[in-house]
């Protein structure tokens, strides 16, 4: 049961092509034009295994409402060519009322397209491009899409001007001419998904990817040192931070491997500089020993894991929520730490910022679980508020004799002497230790320090940030989900509400420490709960069972990547579940 989403004023477009056809650039321009036109939107890229020139698809959804998921179907598919389209077929669901634009120069569309029953219309994109000096088919397609979806010509012009800035006036004119040719053609085509004209909006908007957003959140939080080793799909965080940090007076170092990067940031943070690294599953696995060092020595650090398909090298370019277990439980010994997860692209700003705040306040490693979908998708969002946490690492200014770095302070957070502080000299220690930091294997010291490290994170006031509790907060049916799955779930619930059914939605941002009381409160009055996640082994579901006192029976809907959740799939699952 996949309910249509036309009523929300939104349209999903796929543009496919290969070998330098330029679908990704055209997609970026389309998103930009839509932003200028006052729309919300999301842009997802998908490509084949080739580094360059392989087949690619630009998947764009535009809407008058904020967009956090891909839609059930694509309303419009424009094929610059059909090479290897089979690879994308499952990623490109089409309905009978979808419109497919095919270039007759490529011969008839492939069987996978035809069998969807979608309406196929031929437009000679290549020929039209040839008719324009230096014209390119992708620009013709862009104009055509803009026209069909109702984006004003001037927004298209502005988008082209921005992206082609620096390519020279000639290139811009050629592209523009091609796009206008496409736009003109669109007039003759029937398409019922035209977006309404925007009425203007109050909040200013941003166009941003989750990886950029996480980088920005880190900088807002005060991070000024980053060491990292490149890995897909986290590298863009690092590339963005390399430039961003340079501007705000920080620095990024490319390390020789993840073992080095995690230790470099521990060193920098020990020196008083808030520090971060970003990686993906394989890199996180290499870091866990030293994250444990940060736990034991109580050095604040932030580690962002942009999850990809696992296990092992897995599927580096696709999303999955399967690093939850390693993030929660991947450290040896009893090693309490923070795990948080952003619930949308925009929320990456907040969550990364908050993670820095928590790490610094609690002198503990904070792991941020983003994923490939959040990280590499680009969205038009309302400008995220800057919460300006009063991030303060508790430090000592002047120290008398006998400074005790690991003193058993109330609340567990003991003031930290930053090197340079006279009299504060101590040795940060990964062995179990006395309050002074001397190695100890005594039971009293072990228990005291274990308690200290646990209590400081259990006792902290995480406020309302611990979860987003939204939709129908009075419903006695609850959906619990996390991370990038929240987006499609939210949309599914909106549709169900339109059908008269209501659900309470709980999206914890704070995954560890487990907060069973907060969860119990959030579930008060709930009769049944459904846990939804993108993992083969239902990691989140089992975690909730193990560490939370769910006051109600809970069921699980989970499946692995690489396909994203679409609202229709979830509408069906949730409806079936609630009917059971």
């Amino acid at each position, binding site marked *: 049961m996949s309910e249509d989403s036309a009523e929300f004023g939104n349209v999903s477009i796929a543009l496919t092509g290969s070998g330098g056809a330029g679908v990704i650039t055209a997609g970026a321009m389309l998103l930009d034009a839509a932003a200028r036109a006052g729309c919300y939107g999301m842009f997802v890229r998908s490509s084949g295994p080739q580094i360059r020139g392989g087949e690619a698809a630009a998947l764009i959804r535009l809407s008058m409402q904020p967009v956090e998921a891909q839609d059930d179907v694509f309303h419009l598919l424009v094929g610059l060519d059909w090479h290897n389209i089979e690879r994308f077929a499952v990623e490109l669901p089409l309905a009978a009322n979808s419109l497919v634009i095919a270039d007759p120069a490529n011969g008839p569309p492939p069987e996978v397209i035809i069998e969807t029953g979608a309406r196929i219309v031929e437009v000679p994109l290549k020929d039209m491009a040839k008719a324009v000096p230096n014209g390119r088919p992708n620009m013709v397609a862009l104009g055509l899409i803009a026209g069909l979806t109702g984006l004003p010509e001037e927004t298209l012009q502005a988008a082209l001007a921005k992206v082609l800035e620096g390519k020279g006036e000639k290139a811009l004119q050629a592209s523009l001419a091609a796009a206008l040719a496409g736009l003109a053609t669109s007039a003759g085509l029937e398409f019922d998904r035209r977006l309404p004209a925007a009425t203007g909006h109050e909040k200013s908007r941003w166009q941003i990817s989750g990886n950029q957003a996480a980088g920005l959140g880190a900088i807002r939080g005060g991070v000024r040192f980053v060491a990292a080793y490149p890995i897909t799909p986290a590298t863009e965080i690092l590339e963005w931070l390399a430039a961003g940090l*340079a501007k705000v*007076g920080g620095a990024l170092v490319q390390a020789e491997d993840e073992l080095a990067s995690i230790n*470099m940031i521990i060193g920098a943070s020990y*020196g*008083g500089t808030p520090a971060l690294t970003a990686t993906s599953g394989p890199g996180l696995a290499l870091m866990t020993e030293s994250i444990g060092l940060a736990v034991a020595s109580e050095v604040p650090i932030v580690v962002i894991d942009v999850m990809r398909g696992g296990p092992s090298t897995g599927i580096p370019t696709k999303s999955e929520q399967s690093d939850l277990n390693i993030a929660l439980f991947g450290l040896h010994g009893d090693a309490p730490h923070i795990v948080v997860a952003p619930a949308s692209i925009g929320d990456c700003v907040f969550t990364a910022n908050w993670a820095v705040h928590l790490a610094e306040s609690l002198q503990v490693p904070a792991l941020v679980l983003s994923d490939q979908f959040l990280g590499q998708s680009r969205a038009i969002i309302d400008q995220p508020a800057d919460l300006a946490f009063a991030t303060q690492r508790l430090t000592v200014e002047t120290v008398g004799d006998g400074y005790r770095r690991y003193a058993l302070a109330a609340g567990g957070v003991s003031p930290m002497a930053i090197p*340079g502080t006279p009299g504060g000299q101590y040795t940060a220690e*990964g062995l179990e230790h006395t309050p002074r930091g001397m*190695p100890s294997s005594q039971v009293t010291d072990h228990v005291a320090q274990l308690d200290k490290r646990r209590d400081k994170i259990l006792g902290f006031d995480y406020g309302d940030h611990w979860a987003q509790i939204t939709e129908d907060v009075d419903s006695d049916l609850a959906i619990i989900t996390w991370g990038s799955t929240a987006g499609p779930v939210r949309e599914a619930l909106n549709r169900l509400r339109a059908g008269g059914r209501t659900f309470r939605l709980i999206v914890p941002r704070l995954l560890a420490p487990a907060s069973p009381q907060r969860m119990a409160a959030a579930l008060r009055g709930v009769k049944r709960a459904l846990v939804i996640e993108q993992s083969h082994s239902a990691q989140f579901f089992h975690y909730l069972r193990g560490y939370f006192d769910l006051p109600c029976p809970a069921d699980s809907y989970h499946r692995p990547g690489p396909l994203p959740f679409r609202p229709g799939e979830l509408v069906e699952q949730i409806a079936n579940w609630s009917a059971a």
Partner: protein
Amino acid sequence: MNTQTVSASAARAYKSDVKPVWCPGCGDFTVLSAITKAFAELGLPPEQVAVVSGIGCSSRIPAYLNTYGFHGVHGRATALATGLKLARPDLTVVVASGDGDGFSIGGNHFLHACRRNVDLTYIVMDNRVYGMTKGQPSPTTEPDWDNALTPGGTGLRAFNPLVIALASGANFIARGFSGDPVGTARLIVEAIETPGFSFVEVLSPCVTFRPDQRDWRNAVRPAPVQPTGDIGAAARRLMTDDGFNLGVLYVGSRTPYQTHRTAAPVSPSEIEQQFAV
């Protein structure tokens, strides 16, 4: 009070009140005092110094000093110290390791620390054995040294850390001997004073698992030639060195690596502008 006494107690002032767990006779005691002598000689305020180490008998050294210290995990000391020094260029950062910590599990960071040439001083107490874990062979162990884990010996050629340091870009390379505390103190002073990554291997006998190393006293000698800045000559010399030549063996003139810091940082809200529609 004469100067001499001042300087003696000055060195002592760098010691913490923690008593080393080392075996009596262990070479590391002398390395500890050579380090304090060097700090005293340089007149470093203890709070401006950080000593970072890994895991091993030798790596216990930070706690015995009255400076800032970090006793990290096995093999990662140079990486941790690199982050510290880059974030805090004002500090004097010294890294202390053993031959297992530095050249076995820590080999990659050793390579890349040399190459990165951050202004650190790296002291490796080389006893050609894993002391802390009860006597297994390290990369610098002789191939025929019999032990429980590799009975009859590893059969592997010993690793020459000085050549590797040179080949990967260290800017200062020296060898000391714990039996020569004054000479070692002097090497450490020079290492700290030389900008960039300075590597000091200190032969430091493990009296417990390698009692034969008490004989090192008779094997060491001052290097017969002067330190060189010629990398080709140094390579040839070190490649054929028997491991017992003491002194500064190479001093280069590479500029240390520092992360560039902009003179006029902007606020985060300024860089956010790039996202505005």
